């Protein structure tokens, strides 16, 4: 069949494909892992999910516009995370309750204890309602434009704005609660 017979021509393309895949990973793995983690994919699921994102992207390589790789990958990450959440029954209780902040030590203003601050952040973001979480993570942490977020979540820009604003308010309240003795 012709697919076998044109292997050599295919191989040339294979090499450039290979380079592009490699640079996708080099340039965007951090953002993908961050996004997946913030969207609630944890532990060993995180490694699997990260691999899945890039395997999918690799299969769709020719449809990814140059310069638009990041929103594209994060779009896949959002869907993979959402699937992963449906697969694994999410913890019912609020992660904030598990954090067990030591009461004698209120949160330091300068966040000296980064590790604890990070755990707090994870818990707070995890506590955001679905929808708000995606919008907040993509806009505030991954710093996509509101338009990009709207496109990849398939919602109007106005909805992105209102979700991000509500997420901020939610986070602000969570921080206040975390400070309370």
């Amino acid at each position, binding site marked *: 069949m012709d697919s076998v017979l044109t292997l050599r021509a*295919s191989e040339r393309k294979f090499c450039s494909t290979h380079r592009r895949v490699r640079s996708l990973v080099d340039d965007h793995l951090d953002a993908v892992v961050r996004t997946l983690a913030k969207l609630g994919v944890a532990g060993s699921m995180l490694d699997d999910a990260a691999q899945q994102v890039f395997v999918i992207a690799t*299969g769709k390589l020719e449809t990814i516009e140059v310069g638009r790789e990041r929103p594209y990958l994060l779009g896949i990450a959002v869907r993979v995370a959402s699937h992963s959440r449906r697969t694994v029954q999410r913890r019912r209780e609020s992660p904030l309750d598990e954090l067990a902040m030591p009461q004698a030590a209120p949160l330091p203003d300068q966040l000296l204890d980064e590790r604890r601050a990070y755990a707090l952040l994870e818990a707070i973001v995890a506590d955001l309602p679905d929808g708000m979480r995606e919008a907040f993570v993509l806009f505030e942490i991954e710093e996509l434009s509101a338009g990009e977020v709207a496109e990849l979540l398939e919602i109007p820009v106005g909805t992105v704005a209102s979700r991000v604003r509500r997420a901020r308010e939610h986070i602000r309240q969570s921080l206040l609660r975390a400070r309370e003795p």
Partner: protein
Amino acid sequence: MSDLRRWSEEDATPEELSLLELARRRRAEPAQRAAVLSALGVGVATTAAGAAGAAGAVSVTTKLAALALLASAGVGVALLHSRAEQRAALPAPSAVAVPSSAPTPAPRELAPAIAPTAPALAPSEPASDSANAPSEAKGVAKSKSAPAASSSLSRELSVLKQAHDAIARGNPRGALAALDGYHARFPQGALGAEETVVRVQALLALGDRARATAIAHQFSAAHPDSLYAQRVERLVSGTK
């Protein structure tokens, strides 16, 4: 109010800003990076083919990803049915690169195993290259001088494809000859399991059920967890 600006440009407190900064600083761990590169077949070795061919214990995921790379490079062939394929398919159930020519209807029992279905992660446009290089045809299939990059896995695939096509053309002996050649050339081949499936099919097509069964049993005893174990057992038991 309508235009959304970053929180840092609106009313974020210093504490909120530090949290955001912290969140943005998170990096993937080296092990995660290595795992992703390896799953895509672009890790350890310099090429997917090298990576897949070098390791004896290449995971199905890795092989699948390497095949996906090949598929996206226009070699629209996929011999695999796997969990990874199904998982990968979920958010993007997309066009598959089905060779439209498929001239010879495969024997009945062949179809499910080696349906010409690229994994769902194949690109929607199969290789434009394939259209304009018919003249290279014969040379390539026989060529020993393909560039080192990508050649190993490509050649493995090409041999298996030849064998598959031979069966489809009603020439199981030719298929077996090709597979014997595969063993000789790729004793540590990354697609050994796929080779077994095709061999079992060739033997069945030849009417040698006894040998097909022996090979199937041997394979499933050695690889009880393999997705192909069930596959070959079904083939020899006649239940597909």
